[in-house]
């Protein structure tokens, strides 16, 4: 396997471990405003993923992500399984030629767009999309301005995602099971969004390790002191 392939496999394994460890929290969140299956679905899907990446041979990072996506569609299922899985598959083409900043941004955009189409979702619906799209914006910004290191870009994405998750808290859910909680969803974060944040945090840890550089999640215009 190429270095990139090995790196993506490692990322997948680390993300899987982190989410599986967070299962009780995620299930709890989904039972506050959903139907209490989200963490369980994630664990089932990611256990299968971990199995697959351990045993399969891959030719290229795209192959890894495509396989992970397929596995999630067939093993995780549910709303989140088809969203995570199909988006991975659709976006995997973007990394055929290897993993670099460019490719990662392209991947993030494709992934995010697919979630929007597939889920028929816009920002403010109180879904995972609220956590994804801001992170994509942050990455895109780095690319456009070309003034950040990969680790800084990653730190921005995490911070953006945090804001996204925070944003879901006061929202009223419009999609998924949570939409039926109506006003009662207000005050609780969306579990899918929280999961996305955990993914980005894990990837950020990996990026820091790869680049031997530590950057706290932050954004240029942070409001930490005001909030």
């Amino acid at each position, binding site marked *: 396997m190429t270095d990139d392939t090995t790196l993506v496999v490692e990322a997948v394994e680390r993300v899987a471990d982190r989410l599986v460890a967070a299962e009780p929290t995620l*299930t709890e969140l989904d*039972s506050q405003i*959903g*139907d*209490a*299956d989200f963490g*369980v*679905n994630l664990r*089932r899907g990611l256990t299968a993923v971990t199995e697959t990446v351990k045993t399969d041979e891959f030719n290229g990072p795209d192959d890894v992500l495509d396989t992970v996506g397929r596995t999630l*569609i*067939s*093993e*995780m*299922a*549910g*709303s989140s*399984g*088809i*969203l995570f899985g*199909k988006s991975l598959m659709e976006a995997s083409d973007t990394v055929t030629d290897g993993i670099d900043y460019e490719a990662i941004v392209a991947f993030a955009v494709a992934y995010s767009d697919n979630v929007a189409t*597939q*889920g*028929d979702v816009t920002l403010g619906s109180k879904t995972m999309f609220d956590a994804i799209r801001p992170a994509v914006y942050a990455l895109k910004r780095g690319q456009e301005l070309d003034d950040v290191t990969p680790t800084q870009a990653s730190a921005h994405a995490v911070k953006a995602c945090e804001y996204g998750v925070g944003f879901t808290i006061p929202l*009223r*859910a*419009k*999609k*998924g*099971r949570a*939409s*039926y*909680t*109506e006003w*009662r969803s207000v005050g609780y974060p969306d579990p899918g969004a929280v999961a996305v944040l955990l993914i980005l945090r894990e990837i950020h840890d990996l990026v820091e390790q790869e680049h031997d550089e530590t950057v706290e999640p932050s954004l240029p215009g942070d409001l930490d002191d005001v909030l």
Partner: protein
Amino acid sequence: MAKKKLHNDPTEYVSEMLEGFAAANPSHVRRVDETDIVVRADAPVKGKVGVVTGGGSGHEPMHAGYVGKGMLDGAAAGAVFTSPSATDMQELIEVCDGGAGVLAVVKNYEGDIMNFQTASDLAADTEYEQVIVDDDISVSEAEDRTGRRGVAGTVFVHKIAGAKAAQGASLSEVAATAEKAIDNIASMGVALSSCITPEKGEPTVDLSADEIELGIGIHGEPGVERTEHQSADDITERITTDVVKDLDLAMGDEVVAMVNGLGATTQSELYIVARELNRILDGKSIAVHDIWVGEYCTSLDMAGCSISLLRLDDELRELLNYPVETPAVTIAEP
């Protein structure tokens, strides 16, 4: 305190259930190897439109309980409260295609719809149509949500579509009749207690000792109103009034009714509800062709019930009475 259940490893809940189900009903159904799909023992039925469905587990006997002669050709079971995978749905569609195409009866939920959509794309060789059931009137039509849910009334759609297909109708005819049924079904439920998912083991919904929830969803999604606990008659009247109003039922109309137990409610209680329902409809001079009383679409171990009404015309009445042999519903040849 975690609730005791009869299970082993909770992650094997669905597959062990399906294994037991298949073992208990070999004359009606078989399980498709390495999937959570249950199909008619003799699927595909050559030349007949295949009628399929799918959805999360936890609603037993829905969905596999309705697989058999005169009703469903197959059903895909997801994890508890989780849409089945698109890959299982794809296989379901393909296995149930006897050459006349396949109709999927889908409950109005994004998870099910997204997965069925992907599945039908993948099963490109099968002529495919779908109908979306959205009988739960307790979800108002506001913009801010996903729309009416498909709940217990879906069983009537399975019955009607299955009978129509058994009579040899074409795919578009079966779909059209199913749509007609959907337009004439309305349902509403009430929860007396929360369901408890096998993996979490704790109540999903926090209902206090003297509260009930009207219009609750079959995954514990919130309903329209929490109130103090009331008498069965008062609850029945409230629900029936709303359902009758939604369907715009009037004197001289004829309906079939369903009093559906949500899982932990005894049959005796359901009959107490059926009694009052029958009285109310009688008082409005709405003819009651039949009342189906029992567990048709549960929410794990939730206490409570739902009431569904389907307005009948000659075609729907005939299809409703058409013989059927499934694990959950049997109507003998007259």
